[in-house]
């Protein structure tokens, strides 16, 4: 089974700081890590490989810092990693991303299964896996919480109001949800072996994709938080009656 996993190096959203005046995120130098759902997709691929044999390769694109994610990809156990890095990709929208990834997947070899995280931790568009499947003209199983693969892929897909058990022939694209598995934490010897491995690098010139984004971010801001912050401390149980103060305020605000 030849499995391709799309891996994005996202901003570590929990660690992003915001400028207190402008409320804009300070992205320069902000820490990055493998996108959470992509990590689960990679874990999913590795488990399938452990079961039925084959190989797991990853495709990733982004600015040059993306190269840092390769160590973790190899430490988890992927066989090979394919990268496309260029400064212009900082502005890549989901369409450009999907087109480039689809090309990288085709250029990097045969495939039976493509796994992706349903959405990236930072971009959060939820579009790329579906677009890849349409571009490659293969079926798409969205937001899987479980996956079984032999000559078909059978996934339980969490689609909001119901869990759909969907079955598609291979090759197909499956996007995975956070709930699908607990990814392994690599041991030190895996990390050490990983640093000796080479990865494959594409060049932006190798692709005939229009890099002008159709989605242009005009501004990004943390929304204003203007809450009352009326606090009552009843950690000392003898003061418990003070919660009445909150109820009185809520009555004044007419929400009770």
């Amino acid at each position: 089974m030849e499995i391709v996993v799309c891996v994005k190096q996202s901003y570590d959203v929990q660690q992003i700081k915001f400028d207190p005046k402008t409320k804009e995120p300070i992205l320069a130098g902000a820490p990055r890590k493998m996108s959470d759902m992509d990590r689960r997709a990679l874990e999913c691929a590795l488990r399938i490989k452990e079961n039925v044999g084959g190989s797991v390769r990853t495709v990733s694109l982004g600015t040059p810092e993306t190269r840092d994610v390769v160590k973790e990809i190899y430490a988890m156990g992927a066989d090979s990693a394919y990268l496309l890095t260029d400064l212009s990709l900082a502005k890549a929208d989901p369409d450009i991303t999907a087109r480039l990834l689809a090309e990288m997947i085709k250029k990097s070899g045969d495939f039976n299964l493509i796994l992706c995280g349903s959405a990236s931790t930072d971009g959060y568009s939820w579009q790329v896996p579906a677009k890849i499947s349409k571009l490659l003209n293969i079926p798409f199983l969205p937001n899987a919480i479980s996956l079984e693969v032999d000559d078909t892929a059978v996934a339980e897909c969490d689609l909001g109001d119901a869990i759909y058990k969907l079955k598609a022939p291979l090759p197909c694209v499956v996007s995975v949800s956070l709930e699908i598995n607990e990814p392994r934490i690599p041991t030190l010897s895996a990390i050490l072996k990983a640093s000796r491995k080479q990865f494959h690098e594409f060049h932006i010139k190798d692709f005939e994709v229009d890099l002008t984004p159709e989605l242009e971010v005009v501004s990004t801001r943390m929304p204003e938080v203007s809450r009352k912050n009326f606090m009552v401390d009843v950690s000392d149980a003898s003061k418990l009656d003070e919660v009445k103060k909150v109820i009185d305020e809520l009555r004044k605000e007419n929400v009770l």
Partner: protein
Amino acid sequence: MRAGEIMEVMVYSESVKTFRELVSVGESLNADRVTGVFIGEEENAEEVRKYCDKLFFISSEDIGDYSPSEYSEAVYSAVKSSDPQILLVEGTAKGVPVASMVSVLVGEPCATEVMELSLSEGGLLVKRADLGGVAISEVKVGKKLFDKIASPKVVCIKPGFYPASDSERKGEMVRLKPEVKRRTEVVEIKRKERGEGFEDADVIVVAGRGVKKKEDLGMLEELAKLLGGVVGVTRPLSADLHWAPTWIGMSGIPVKPKLYVGVGVSGQIQHIAGIRNSKVIVAVNIDPNAPIFEHADYGIIGDLYQVVPKLIEILKE
């Protein structure tokens, strides 16, 4: 065509309620015509047709149950049968894959996680959740609105951000039978227990990790009842512990009640992003440093197992 003028907005949804919300969006853009695509049962199609000028109906008997690729082909056939400049799709787990694929088929951009949509300088401007829900971005969608026939910009609107439209329209209906090659089989559909209607609730009490046992939700139900509301849970209590079929939060159900009470909720970014539009936020947590307190109008630092019974006692008086 004049810049800034929308001739036709097409909406696609599988639910009557979201369909009506999307029609409202079209109305807010002053569209001349609002058309719709509905895939499902005929009786529901009959229900939605009155909210649009023309409804393209594809019967689930013809196309089968939901599978994104096949449904995207069906929606595409409706787009081609008309000439929308904008296609509005429900911003849900089912809608977004379909929208993403239709955007590839028509060769136009698609914006998702959108909470607000407007026209500006002949183009589309959206406000969407970004950075995993922590921030809000203003994004320009596409360069020009009117360059090609049946080439709509696609926008996925999150449910609950627009009101359900009441307007009565022409209600013409056309049944389409597109030739769609089915490759994905729907083996089984397990409906989740009906959620409590969180999108409309006035009062929501949410249990977080501080609540130790599922049985303790009973105490929260009592509190919710006294407040006139419903009980929800945060993601880990649903996705990991399976105490409820779904959760309150950006990636689950975003809500905007009049009163939100978080009990033992620490305030993870995605949860906050999903409750941000609540009118009044009350938080109960034993940890004075819990991030939720920054976002709360009223914060109660204390043991929820003491605070909640006390609140119940006071409310009963």
